[in-house]
């Protein structure tokens, strides 16, 4: 086995894996706090990437668009929570999950209606030939993706560990009733969680678009990979989601190089089914959800 090829495969796998990890983080963040699965996480990102596409068409420089859309993605998530989910107060997590399936239809339909169902070009954040160092070749977009992912993970962890709202988010996901008694406004926390998940979705979409090309179904596969990443990581663990995403990216790359590229998709499906059946807590999750 050639170590140089191997390290190249690992490095570029990490680039894709970082995207899975970002989307997985958004799914896990919502699941931890609301016990509901957001099946529309990927499509929130797809929608916001189309918004970015429109802004780029207006000749606004892309780095600026990137920042604007990240902020808009946060607002989008807040809007989804405040505008719709808020009315589900007291309803089961399963009802919320089914509502997110409705979001999938609405977001995909709306994006197709506004921007059409054909494929659009989407620029990378950092153009230019790949970077070579010690025989390792790394696409510039991969570099951007890895750096962005690293930065957002650090921000995320600091937010949860060091800020008042972050600690409150963790408190709500552990014991909603007790948090309420401390004066925490649970609806504000939910809106924040959806906002941040929206931000992660938008980020994931914009990082994925140059690689997978922008269309209405762009995020369907990526979201499936993100689910796999989340399942690998135990579904409620934040480091688990990051680890799961990166592992999956590398694993896919290795398998499609050394075995067969047609195995790329099935492998994640097999992982989901096997991990959930054999060890539903994943490789990272500490405990199964309180409810049986």
């Amino acid at each position, binding site marked *: 086995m050639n170590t140089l090829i191997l390290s190249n495969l690992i490095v570029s796998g990490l680039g894709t894996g970082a995207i899975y990890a970002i989307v997985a983080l958004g799914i896990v963040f919502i699941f931890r706090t609301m016990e509901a699965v957001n099946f529309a996480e990927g499509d929130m990102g797809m929608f916001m990437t189309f918004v970015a596409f429109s802004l780029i068409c207006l000749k606004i420089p892309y780095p600026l668009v990137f920042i604007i859309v990240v902020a808009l993605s946060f607002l989008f998530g807040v809007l989804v929570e405040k505008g719709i989910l808020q009315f589900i107060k007291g309803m089961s997590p399963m009802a919320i999950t089914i509502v997110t399936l409705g979001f999938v239809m609405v977001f995909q339909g709306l994006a197709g209606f506004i921007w059409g169902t054909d494929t659009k070009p989407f620029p990378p954040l950092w153009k230019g030939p790949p970077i070579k160092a010690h025989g390792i070749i790394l696409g510039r977009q991969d570099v951007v993706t890895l750096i962005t992912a690293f930065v957002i993970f650090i921000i995320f962890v600091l937010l949860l560990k060091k800020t*008042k709202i972050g*600690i*409150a988010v*963790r*408190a709500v996901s*552990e*014991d909603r*009733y*007790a*948090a*309420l*008694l*401390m*004066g*925490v*406004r649970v609806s504000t926390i939910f809106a924040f969680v959806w906002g941040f998940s929206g931000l992660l979705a938008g980020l994931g979409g914009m990082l994925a678009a140059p690689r997978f090309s922008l269309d209405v179904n762009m995020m369907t596969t990526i979201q499936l990979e993100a689910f796999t990443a989340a399942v690998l990581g135990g579904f409620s663990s934040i480091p688990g989601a990051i680890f799961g995403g990166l592992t999956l990216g590398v694993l896919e790359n290795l398998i499609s190089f050394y075995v067969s590229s047609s195995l790329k998709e099935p492998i994640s499906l097999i992982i989901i089914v096997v991990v959930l059946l054999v060890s539903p807590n994943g490789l990272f999750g500490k405990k199964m959800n309180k409810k049986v």
Partner: protein
Amino acid sequence: MLLLENLHVSYGPIEVIHGINIEVKKGEIVSLLGSNGAGKTTTLKAISGVVKPTSGKIIFNGEDISRKEPSYIVSKGIIHVPEGRHIFPGLTVRENLLLGAYMRVDKEIRKDIEKIFKYFPILEERKNQLAGTLSGGEQQILAIGRGLMAKPKLLLLDEPSLGLAPKIVSEIFSIIENLKKEGITVLLVEQNARKALKISDRGYVLVTGNILLQGTSKELQNDENVKKLYLGR
């Protein structure tokens, strides 16, 4: 300080509190006694705004708070330390205390944590430990400490001695007695009527959603019914 006037509370179609009147004066410890399912916890939940009363008033320092959100009620100085402690097991002891001060915006929070640590040295010893790893008694102390972090005027304590070893129960009760010296008013819900009446000024006996008896602790301690039903004599 706190006045419940003809308070009714229902869960769905079933009324569980049938118009009760309770008064808690500033600086008092008032016990709310009764057996399981009498409506004690529901009464506390109504005061802290977690459940909304169907009718009647809850007046705190002259203001009707019966329809307010829990966050508003916390900001007014009523803190509810729930039955079963409900500490946040995956957060550290320190983070639990920080959450107690969630509604506060002043700059004294850090100083107050140190104060709590001085008051309850066991919490300082365990400050970076996850709260879920504490023993039952330590968790109860943490729950009270977390409540104190909000600088409460009125503390609602629900079954603080439940499931604790006798030695720790005595410790918890002495903590509650000390709260009074710190100027905190306490409404105490307890199964352990004997110990509760010992430290409280007055008490109410709640039976299936109605106040059956009320009086000073001494009167209740000597009441034949109370003796028979709750003091086991």
